[in-house]
Structures are given as C-alpha cells and as structure tokens.
C-alpha cells in the first residue's frame, strides 16, 4: 500500500458514511479516460474485482481507495483529496442516485 495518499473533505466523509449505512462496505476506484474520466467512482465492496494491478492508496472513512498502478505512476503519484459536489455525474458511482458526485478537489 502507498501510505496515506488519500484524504476526504468532511462533507465527502459524511456522504461516504451515509452511503455505507445504506449499501454496506464500500470501495473507491479512481477512474480515467473519457467523459467523467477523473472521477473517483464509489461502489459496493466486491462490485468490481480489484486486481493485482490496482494500488491501495489508503482509506477514506470506511472505504478503501484504489487506483490503477500505471495510471498512478503516470499521474506522478499524487495525493488525492476527495470532495463532493452537487449534480449527478455520469458514472456508475453510487452517490449519483442522490444527485451528487465525488470529485478530486486537490
């Protein structure tokens, strides 16, 4: 694990806790590419098979946060700060049902 590379704002943490209470254990995968490409995608734990090429960056509240290894390297191993903003994104991320989206704020 890459130690302590991810944090969340208090608003994001509150939302993560709320989603965990509704859906059970959660996992984040940092997305890339087209459309909502830089979005952190929040899903139920086990929804997606986390593979050997994903790096665990830390935990935000009860949720583990992963990123693809090559993507992490190419982005220069940044620290991520996860926030939340109004409006649904266009991914399968769970908070979209509540017209919100997680976003990298730093």
């Amino acid at each position: 694990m890459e130690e302590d590379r991810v944090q969340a704002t208090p608003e994001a943490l509150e939302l993560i806790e709320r989603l965990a209470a509704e859906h059970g254990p959660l996992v984040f995968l940092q997305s890339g590419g087209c459309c909502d490409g830089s979005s952190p995608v929040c899903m139920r734990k086990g929804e997606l098979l986390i593979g050997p090429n994903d790096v665990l960056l830390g935990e935000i509240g009860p949720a583990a946060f992963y990123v693809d290894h090559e993507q992490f390297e190419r982005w220069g191993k940044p620290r991520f700060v996860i926030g939340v903003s109004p409006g649904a994104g266009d991914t399968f991320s769970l908070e979209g049902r509540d017209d919100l989206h997680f976003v990298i704020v730093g």
Partner: protein
Amino acid sequence: MPVLEKEFTYAPPGLAGSPVPLKERYDNFIGGRWVAPKKGQYAVDLTPATGKPITEVPKSTAEDVELALDAAHAAKDGWAELSIKERSRVLNAIADVIDANAEMLSVAESWDNGKPVRETLSTDIPLASDHFRYFASVIRGEEGSISEIDKDTIAYQYREPLGVVGQIIPFNFPLLMAAWKIAPAIAAGNVTVIKPASPTPWSILKLMELLEPIVPAGVINVVNGPGAEVGMALATSKRIAKVAFTGETATGRMIMQYAAQNLIPSTTELGGKSPNIFFEDVMAADDDYLDKAIEGLVLYAFNKGEVCTCPSRALIQASIYDKFIERCLGRIEKIKQGHPLDILTTLGPQVSKAQLEKVTNYVKIGLDEGAELLTGGHRNVLPGELAEGYYFEPTVFKGHNKMRIFQEEIFGPVLAVTTFKDEAEAIEIANDTMYGLGAGVWTRDMLRAFRMGRAIKAGRVWTNCYHLYPAGAPFGGYKASGVGRETHKMMLDHYTQTKNVLVSYSPKALGFF
C-alpha cells in the same frame, strides 16, 4: 436554414419562434409508447448555456429497465425476422426524418449539451442521418457463405442477430453517439435498450418523438436515470445479449466484468489523450495547407474539448515552435465563445457544472506542476442570462509529456503543448500514454506521414486532417482506450453471431455403430 456566416440566434426550445417544441416533462420511451417511471420520480435537465432548467426527465429505477427489456424481448423476433430489405427501409426512413428535422434536432442538441449550433447543423446531425444510411446500405450487400466440406457435406454460414442489446451513450455527442450505437445494432437485426447520459437526457427524446411512427414498437427503447441505478441494472441484466459502452475507465471495467459474469460480449470506448503532431515542413510555405494545419491544432477546442479523441496534446517540432505557436495562438484568440444558439459562436459551455469544476481543477494542477500558461485558464463569465453558464476560456499550456495534464484526458478546451527534435522523439512522446484512440500527423512529406501512421499506437491516425468521423472508416481504441470498433460495417460482427448449419446430403451411415 440560416447560412453559417450570417448573424442569427435561434430562440431556445419552448420559446416563441424556436424550431423546438418543448413539453414540461418527458417520459421513458418503451415499447413504442411514452411510459412514466414506475416510482414517479423525475430529474430536472439543465442547459449548460445558462444553468437553467430545460425540462424534466425520468429518474428511472431498475423496474423501468425491466419494462424496457420486456418490450425489447417482445419485439426481438419480429424485428430479426423482417426482411433485410424492410429493415434497410426503416433505417433509411430514420435518416430521412432526421434530415427533414435537422434544424429542430440541431437546436435541441445544442441546448441540451451546450455545443454550438453551427457544429450540430454542420456536423452532428448530418453525420447521424448518414450513419443510418450507411448501415441501411451495407446490410443489403451482406452475404453468408457456403463451403463444400466434401461432395455430400455442405457448411452453410448465416449471420444471426444477438437479440436484445444494452447500449450506454456518452454526453459529448448525445445524438451522434446514439446513432453510432443504434444504427449497427438494429441494422444487424437486434433490438436495443438505450441509457442516455445523465447530463444530456433530452435531445434523444426529441428524436424518439420523430421515430415513434417509423420504427416498430420495442425496437428502440430509451430509459433515463442515474448510471448507478439504470446503467447498472441494464449492464448486469441476464436479459441482454451484449453491452456497449462509451465513457470512463472505472465504469468501463465494471461493464466488462458484468459482461464476463453473464458470459456475453461487450464493446467499450474509454477515451484517450490524443497527440497532434506538427512537423517543421508545415511552415515551408504560407499557404492554404499551413492555414489548415493551424486550424488542425485549434481543433482541440472543437465541442469544447469534450471529445474522446480531443487532440489535447500538441507536439510541435522545436525548429518551428515559436513561429507556429504564435500563429495558432492568434487563431485561438479569434474563437468566439458565447450563446450556443448563436450561429457564429464557435465555443460553447462545458456540459455540466461538474465538468467545469474538473477543467478548473486541471488548470490548477497544470500550474502547480510548473506548466507555462500561454492563454486562457479561467472560467469565462459571460454577461446577462449566460452568467450562470459553464463557460471556460480556450486554454493552452506549454510543458512536457510527463506532466499530469499531458497524461489525463481533461475533457475541456485545454491544450498541452510540447516540442520534439526529430521523428523518433515525436513517436516516443506520441506513444507515451496509457491510451491510443486518435492521433494527428501534419506533414507535407507523405513518406514520413506513412511511417508515422504506422508507428503511432492508436486506432485512428488522422493524416493532414483531424476530427473527421465519416461512416465507413473504423473508429476505436488501442491500449486502455477500449475494445471494439464503431462507424464501419465490421460493427455488424460485433452485433451478430455466426450460425453454421452443417448438412449431409449422403444417405450412408457413418459406420461407427
């Protein structure tokens, strides 16, 4: 239709004089009818031009996806058994009705997405209708095959449709990307359930109003709602035979995994970070070609950079860098950002507040990592009713390819420029990315152009052009840019399966038992 050079602004949908009639609320289009979402929930659809509501669309749930799948399954045998001639006639009728309503659809698309109406009039809508015509025509020429195994044993190969397919559409070209997915699917004899993108749920409903009397009930079904609800219900369903998706990589992985769990095929298009390479000979003369090359660089701002193949990395040979970038920055200054329904506007707002925030954040990342800001870099607050719209200035950074702004698709009007010494370095930089969707090569030397075209690891290398999307040229990704191709008759392979009927005409037993 207005000419593109003369000042003219369309009235927004629903207002007096607008070519687009508007209802206060729309429903899902299922089984040829307009069906309210089961739970009765609706979401407000905003226009990025002003940040104000256009209308309401369903905030559907998994139950509505089931209804659409019911309708699709009821329609699939009838559609599959229709003669090719009749199926082709329906696709041509779709193309005709799109053309006959091109102005209405162009304005609706522009208002829903924010893209300038001069783009939808000249590009999105004509390409959408042509796409249906292309698939209407190629299926007439499709043939199976017969092979003689021996003189009494014949193998017959038929191409049969998959059945009901699920298709998830991105927000950047809501109607054109829908055409890219719907046309080959239904041409091949499948029926489809469509999940439009959450920021652009409405323009496709204007299209469905036109298609209602033309397409048999249940062949095209549209269900709006959140990706985590509607998209996931569709992609995980045991009742689809294939899933197609355009979007980001995390959801792309989920889509491919669900397909694996259900043992069905998937096709994905997941974006890129496309290089646009300018060799020194582009400046060998100050002529039409140079003018075209300069426009070629500025095409990063086409559709506000919200294009999977946005040429968002410009690689300029060092020997011409100063002069060439000066000419390009001069052209970028002439970009007219404003009301998307103004026929002279060349740059509209980002599709959503979320995208605007993302672009703003990437500019900050670029500055923090030491990239040099050559122009732009700020939200553009326009006067009057546009003040709350999601406009961002056309932006150019200079830096190097290891920077994050060179590695991640920003999906905004943000260009990252760097230089190269020679052809070998150009190839090295071009390929130094996770993605491989598009690339551009600009040179008067066609021997070099040929070498570059083969050396770049991307699904399409535009050579002395960019952002052309004709039906008949296959489009799709290398590397992490996805799996599968679009816009070509080979798509029929993605939407059919091969039936082999192996016939013995011999009366003799095998002799085993």
